[in-house]
């Protein structure tokens, strides 16, 4: 950046932050009123973050993420560092974590693209009819822009604050997956997406449909559905190579109890002839899935992706 561009950059960051902090979580008592010192505190955190991480600077939506933390942690510097940690797990940070992923699959311009890719695959496995509807809409439908705000703000604008924060914690727990937020997306589609298929909604109408659901969805129901989807995913005997990374980043991993699924190449991505999972790779764990008391013996219909 030239000095001139640099000055313009900072002017813009400051201008946008100033505008956003005074209209973030105003319904929360903590930020209400003129000249509220907590708003000033939020402003300093965001400006400091822009200095700390100039590659991101400030993007709209970040104030939505920092506000609940500040209201909970109260201390400004502690909140700053919590926010730094939180940002590393958001799609604001736009560099795919796995280079191989990028090589194997479509060129990804941003992390949203990566999330959308996983999401499409999850929908293909769990909700084939919805996936087929997206396919029938073409490229526009497959971008799934109705999920963008869900992922960017981790559902903060979709549910009342108490429920949204519960969902945040459920995601932060990283229980069996680092991608629980994607299971939440699929859960929302599963619970509230029937009209989309029945009425064959076009891309913009779909955006309107899900947009209108904001603050009218049942967070508890969605969370329960997401948990059950994760459980069913875990019982799959085979997973497509496109979703392999969905499970491997999470600590000990999803299959630490002995059973491992086979990974199969879907053959539907660039360079699939050199995919390490070309042909079914049987992992060295022949044990069948353990039959939990509640678990179905075979994956539910709609969950098998193999023809």
């Amino acid at each position, binding site marked *: 950046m030239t000095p001139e561009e640099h000055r313009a950059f900072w002017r813009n960051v400051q*201008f946008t932050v100033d505008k*956003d902090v005074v209209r973030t979580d105003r319904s929360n008592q903590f930020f209400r009123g003129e000249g509220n010192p907590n708003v000033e505190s939020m402003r300093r955190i965001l400006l400091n973050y822009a200095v700390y991480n100039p590659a991101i600077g400030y993007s709209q*939506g970040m104030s939505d993420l920092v506000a609940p933390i500040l209201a909970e942690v109260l201390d400004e510097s502690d909140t700053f560092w919590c926010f730094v940690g939180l940002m590393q797990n958001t799609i604001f940070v736009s560099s795919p974590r796995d280079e191989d992923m990028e090589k194997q699959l479509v060129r990804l311009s941003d992390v949203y693209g990566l999330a959308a890719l996983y999401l499409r695959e999850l929908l293909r496995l769990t909700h084939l009819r919805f996936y087929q509807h997206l396919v029938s809409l073409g490229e526009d439908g497959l971008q799934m822009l109705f999920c963008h705000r869900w992922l960017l703000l981790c559902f903060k604008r979709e549910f009342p604050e108490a429920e949204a924060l519960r969902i945040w914690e459920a995601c932060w727990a990283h229980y069996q997956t680092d991608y629980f937020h994607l299971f939440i997306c699929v859960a929302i589609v599963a619970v509230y997406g029937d009209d989309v298929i029945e009425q064959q909604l076009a891309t*913009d109408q779909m955006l*309107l449909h899900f*947009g209108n659901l904001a603050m009218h969805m049942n967070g508890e129901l969605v969370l329960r559905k997401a948990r059950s989807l994760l459980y069913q995913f875990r019982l799959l005997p085979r997973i497509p190579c496109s979703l392999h990374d969905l499970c491997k980043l999470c600590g000990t991993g999803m299959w630490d109890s002995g059973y491992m699924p086979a990974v199969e190449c879907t053959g539907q991505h660039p360079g699939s002839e050199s995919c390490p999972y070309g042909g079914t790779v049987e992992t060295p764990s022949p044990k069948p899935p353990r039959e939990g008391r509640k678990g179905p013996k075979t994956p539910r219909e709609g969950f098998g992706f193999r023809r």
Partner: protein
Amino acid sequence: MGNRNEEDYNFVFKVVLIGESGVGKTNLLSRFTRNEFSHDSRTTIGVEFSTRTVMLGTAAVKAQIWDTAGLERYYRGAVGALLVFDLTKHQTYAVVERWLKELYDHAEATIVVMLVGNKSDLSQAREVPTDEARMFAENNGLLFLETSALDSTNVELAFETVLKEIFAKVSKQRQNSTRTNALTVGSEPGPDPGAFPALWFQMSEWPVLVRSPAEL
């Protein structure tokens, strides 16, 4: 311009709201589609949109208005745009030209654009003179109005004007294509659709359509 059943319409016009953050796009949208204004409105993330069906003459037009938060991927298919600035913040007016360029880069060339100076209720804090903005609009072939989403001034008129202009273009296109099909010779060329005056909405009446809406 009256309201009508949402499902019953002859046309759908997609109109985008663009301009700097905080100029009042979301409140213009909510004022027009729901007659609501919020003092505590939040930053728009991604895109939000609402619809309202209005009568133009005898045709029902469903206006689909997209509040875009500046994402050009949503400009596609738009036939109208309100380019909004905050008349109490010169900085939001200074970048209007950049927004215009971005719009023309991504939208149809025939798109109807209105420059809108919002927050006219805060005239004591005005930083952008009306004449300056109007001059810019005229020089760039844009419609122009000053509005207040807070006290409703000109909000209805702004959207109405843009929709009527789009409607006029569409009607003219249809008539032209009918004429061509009928191989009518010697038809008058008609005014250049791009050359409408910036303040044409002062006309008292919408020109009477010679065709019934069913034919359109």
